């Protein structure tokens, strides 16, 4: 039995500790906002917060995540997350939307560390999050917009 703390809730799972956190979240806990894109930490679609830092859940095992607070797109909250999501909606960032849970978690991670990132810092922090619809131009704009909202 594995115990995860996810979105503030304690959940017991009857899975092997080597199961990737991604599949525990999606298939066992049925929180499907977190997406599968590559399974190899190459696309960022599966990004969740583990211990306050963005992590690729496809390459994090349930055993490694046990005992640490995990936040998925369903549970993301607080000033930074609200600003990021409001900016995303304001700029109509998503196209297909499939990558966006991961993008938003990474953006929240960035703005939690750096309240006023420039374009290069945004690019560096977001490079691991692929968007095949190439919404990158708006992602940059929305992160700047969220930074402005946080400042105000």
């Amino acid at each position: 039995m594995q115990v995860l703390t996810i979105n503030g809730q304690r959940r017991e799972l009857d899975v092997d500790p080597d199961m990737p956190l991604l599949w525990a979240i999606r298939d066992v806990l049925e929180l499907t906002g977190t997406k599968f894109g590559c399974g190899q930490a190459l696309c960022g679609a599966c990004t969740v917060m583990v211990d306050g830092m963005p992590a690729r859940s496809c390459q994090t095992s349930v055993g490694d995540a046990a005992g640490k607070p995990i936040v998925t797109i369903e549970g993301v909250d607080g000033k930074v997350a609200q600003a990021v999501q409001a900016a995303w909606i304001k700029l109509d960032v998503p196209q297909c939307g499939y990558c966006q849970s991961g993008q938003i978690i990474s953006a929240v991670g960035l703005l939690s560390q750096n309240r006023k990132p420039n374009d290069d810092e945004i690019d560096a922090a977001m490079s691991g999050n692929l968007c095949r619809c190439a919404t990158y131009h708006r992602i940059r704009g929305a992160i700047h917009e969220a930074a402005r909202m946080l400042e105000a």
Partner: protein
Amino acid sequence: MLFDRLGSAPRLSDHAATDAAGPAVPDLSRRRFLLAAAAIGGGLAVGFRAAPAEAAATAAPAAAATNPFAAYLRIAPDNTVTVLSAHMDMGQGIYHGTATLVAEELGAAWEQMRAEGGWGNPKLYGNLAWGGTMQGTGGSSGTFSSFDRYRQAGAAARMMLVAAAAKAWSVPAAEIKVDKGVVSHASGRKASFGDLAAAAAAMPVPADVTLKASDAWTLIGNETLPRIDSREKSTGRQTFTIDVKLPGLLTAVMIHPPVFGAKVKSFDAAKAKAIKGVVDVVAIHRGVAVVADTMWSALKGREAVTVVWDETGAETRSTAEIMASYRELAAKPGATVAENRGDVDGAFAGAAKVIEARYEFPYLAHAALEPLNAVARRNADGTIEIWGGHQMPDLYQMIAAKVADTTPDKIVLHVMKTGGGFGRRAVFDADVVAEAVAVGRAIGWKAPVKVQWTREDDMRGGRYRPAYVHALKAGLDKDGRIVAWSNRIVGQSIMKGTAFEAMVTNGVDPTSVEGSAHLPYAMPNRRVELTTTDVGVPVLWWRAVGSTHTAYAVETFLDELAAAAGRDPVEFRLDMLQGSPRHAAVLKMAAEKAGWGAPLPAGRFRGVAVAESFGTVVAQVAELTVGKAGAIKVERVVCAVDCGTAVNPDMIRAQIEGGIGFGLGAILKSKLTLDKGRVVEGNFDGYEVLRIEDMPKVEVHILASNAKPTGVGEPGVPPIGPAVANAYAKATGKRIRALPFAQSLNT
């Protein structure tokens, strides 16, 4: 066998293309071949009863006389209006578009609008750009096909709401107003759409509707309309096929043949079946499926299965070998001629200068971020429900029925939004959809099943943008004008050997030559030849299809000719575009907005390209810098678009921005390689695509137009490659003629 039936399509000689896609005709090539599919539908004795030509003529008026509540929209008691879109949404925003069209005429408040995929009535959902008999999404035709139909539906629904209110309030209909979702009368009576919905649906359907004049529009063309699904997509609430939840749902992963064309000889699943969570291992027509309780169990099970393959007749060549054979073919006259005007050979003989260049284009994977998937369930009443990115639903219904050994009326499709698509979900054999049905059947339908491909399955699963070689040759006269033009194209046909074979005319697949044949430039003597190759690698349309390679070859070669003639590349093109005013206008606009001719900061260089695809004309000016190590950084792209009436300007910008990023990633980095028939790249480490640090700043300018809207999903892609290559040539003097750039720069 189903696939044999589909393969032996009746030829539709009356409707088949007699020529390749010409300029200024929206999505001609795709329209025609889907008509062929409609005839095949007839051959299978399901649907598509109307002759294509007849349906095309009657489909639009039929929409006006159709009860809109039966097909195009639903008004719920909670006052939400849900539009049922005839086109699938893979991110291009067509749900937003159809909702805009309905809301405009209905008089709805934007906040009450919703949208979902409609399906099950080819006559009412048939794509009007394809003749109207078959539902389908593609060729950037969604807005074109929906523009009249969904406005008419909205207008008819408004009249029915008004009629219901008039009856309830005993006042003349002419005295009733509808505004922002409120139906009202001067007497002070008021009702919401939700209040009137039930009564309205039973009102007589108006035989005729009058649509608003364009100057009365408040939603069409509105710059500030929030995208209909941004909130769901920014909160993780948008569900895709991968997210479908059903009681007892199992997950299956496939083991596909290691080389294209191999078949399962035998397999050993004993070890896999011993793994916790694995439910079954079954062979189906497309490989072996491992069925389990979760994706993780299925993946572990898959590792434990051994399959022996029969590789007889499979494609086992490497891409190096295939490309070498294409180069040889490109040195010889083409097997077929797509266009031949004037006296090409005579003009070459008299030319002052002859210039030649050869271009090479790799196979490309679509690599949408949601790997392919589908969910199937059989119900107690024998119906089979299938959730998926049903891009050609009527065809998938037929195929699913065959695979399940049932009748098409038993198949119920749920059209899901997909995590990208780029053409990959419009497949001749319904690949993953057929797999879900076949696996469900193979396990005796004991539980609903989701077939989920991994990234590697998706990358190695075939259906690529075909590889091509182009040989171009042009003759200039002493004043630097093009007097002779020849373009030889060598590569696979997308449609040959498929259900759409009938669209291949005189050996020319229009998707192989679109963007090369019938150029908008005034060139009196020109010839486009095509040699279609026989390679066992499955190919498919990939966002912008033929123009992904033809525009690159044509527009970079033109740049080279302009340089040889000592002419400015914009002026050089404009001289030849006097008979193509739309092309000239977008080119001028892009050049002007980009400050063409004005000095740039040191180390920055500009390039330009213009291309028409699917009836939309796009010009782009790219600015780049070249770093010390030779690294290219595209800094800025200025783009002008003529797509007719701009229904959703911000959605147009989004699609063009996305098209630029999609195309740029491909030309800089992407290639799919075969080693003795085995696909080398499996994931985003080997198959590189654009990441955020490579995304330029993009400016999109939309030409004002009252013409009928044309598409924007694809046309942003073709010009970016040549615009960047032309800027690179300006910066370095080097012409990149083999894609991707990364490969040319390393060799």
